[in-house]
């Protein structure tokens, strides 16, 4: 998998500092928790704690296509009407709202996953093509949530710039100066530099390599008599 998260320190004396490298781990966890791995092409974090300044630049991936009824449910013609069986529960609220708006009270709900659209209201083929939701709209909300989780909580003075499919967010606890913005934009023009793997040793958790401390080995528990 290609690397998507890059961290850089704008302060040359703190290039591979613990906090800078840990920001990469925090960002990777935030993206993983919010299921954003596929939606982003690149996320760059620029840090200078002496100013203090924390910048996050996000480049979104290609826009996701809208979800249609056929993508999230099975549509079957029956004797009593068209049966719509939900397959992706994540789309349940959007599909329920769509069907309620289109067919109102004439719907019959058989159980949690299945509804029946009365016969003759709409052809099954047309029903399959109806748009349930636009994931693109919801992705931006989740991206902002991820960025908010990455930026230190005390940095409340913020400035956001959105251009096409990219977003730049600068944060500080002091008023943001124009020269800082220029410095960040200048740094973003350069291609991202990945962190050498040896620098991430001891920063990123490695369960396999975890060494059992002597005092935790079996039969060597000092607190137990």
């Amino acid at each position, binding site marked *: 998998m290609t690397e998507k998260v890059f961290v850089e320190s704008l302060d040359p004396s703190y290039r591979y500092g613990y906090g800078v490298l840990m920001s990469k781990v925090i960002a990777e966890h935030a993206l993983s928790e919010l299921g954003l791995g596929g939606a982003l092409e690149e996320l760059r974090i620029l840090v200078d704690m002496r100013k203090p300044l924390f910048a996050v630049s996000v480049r979104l991936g290609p826009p996701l296509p809208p979800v249609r009824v056929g993508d999230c449910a099975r549509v079957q013609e029956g004797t009593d009407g068209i049966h719509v069986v939900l397959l992706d529960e994540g789309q349940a609220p959007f599909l329920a709202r769509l069907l309620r708006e289109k067919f109102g009270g004439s719907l019959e709900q058989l159980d949690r996953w299945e509804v029946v659209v009365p016969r003759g209201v709409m052809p099954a083929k047309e029903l399959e093509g109806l748009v349930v939701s636009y994931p693109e709209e919801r992705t931006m909300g989740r991206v902002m949530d991820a960025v908010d989780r990455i930026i230190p909580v005390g940095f409340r003075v913020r400035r956001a710039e959105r251009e096409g499919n990219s977003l730049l967010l600068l944060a500080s606890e002091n008023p943001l100066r124009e020269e800082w913005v220029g410095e960040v934009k200048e740094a973003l023009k350069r291609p991202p530099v990945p962190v050498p793997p040896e620098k991430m040793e001891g920063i990123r958790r490695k369960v396999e390599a975890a060494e059992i401390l002597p005092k935790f080995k079996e039969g060597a528990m000092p607190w*137990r008599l």
Partner: protein
Amino acid sequence: MPGFLFEGGGYRHQELLELVEDLGGSLLQVRVVGTEVTVTFFVPEEDVAEVEDLVRDLQGKLKRLPLLGSEIAVVSPTITRHHLPHPLCDVAEYLRREGAKTNMIGLARGPGQRICQISVEERRLIEEHDAAVFVLGNFEYCLREHKWRLFKDLSVPVVVAGGPELPSLPHAFSYISGLGRLPYRTRTFTEIGKLDEVARAVERALEERRRKLSLDPPLLSPLVLKGEIENRLEEVRKCGAPLPVTPRLVGVRVKLPHSRFARVLAGLEVAGYRLGEIAEIRRSVMRDYILVDLLPLSRLELPEKGLRAISGRAEV
């Protein structure tokens, strides 16, 4: 006196309770759930072997709790998801397993560099505890240059946990690295080893505090006071709070409303004296609880008929 946790069956556990009392120890908590019993207690160091023999006979488990009888504040700069729950809950839970009674405190304006601050009320709340553990962030510059302002004026020992490797931090009793802002729970042995380091640092801080207190000790032990309050005050038994009389190094915290029970406590006769004479009774910043701080012997004078408090600060 070292503290212990006994876990075993309910059958014959009364023998353990009797032994602890016979040895001059103190029972902190006895919890019977179904057929299982959990007992936390103190016994004198020289009598530990006798307790071990009985526990072996009862086929129960015995665990040494080095932090038993202490109340520790685990402090975070905020209560946002940046600082909670992972590192803070892990530290608090580990200290609890080591016997401490922990209270988690999130500061109102703790984050940031220039803007980080601690209010007088927060400081008073933390100072009610025996020691404090501050779980801070990952940036060396912030820790070195700014964050020490949060604990500079605290009168209790402060153990700081943070991310980067640093030899020490100004105004901190001890600094433990590798436990800063983490996006995950501590699971590996290396991470749990870090929690163990925090517990050992707290243990050292408490030892240091105990040593200082022993130079001018109070008239009686907080554990004795706890037993007396529980025996005399009926309302304590009806109180729903966990550990309604919490022992601390210098006294106890009684989880009853100050407005109603401070006067009752002050009049309570303990070891031949009124509690108001040998202890300072004040309102806790935490809810409306009562703090009982036992006065050291130097602040008491010995009249012919016994001790009399010379402190004018006692609320009676």
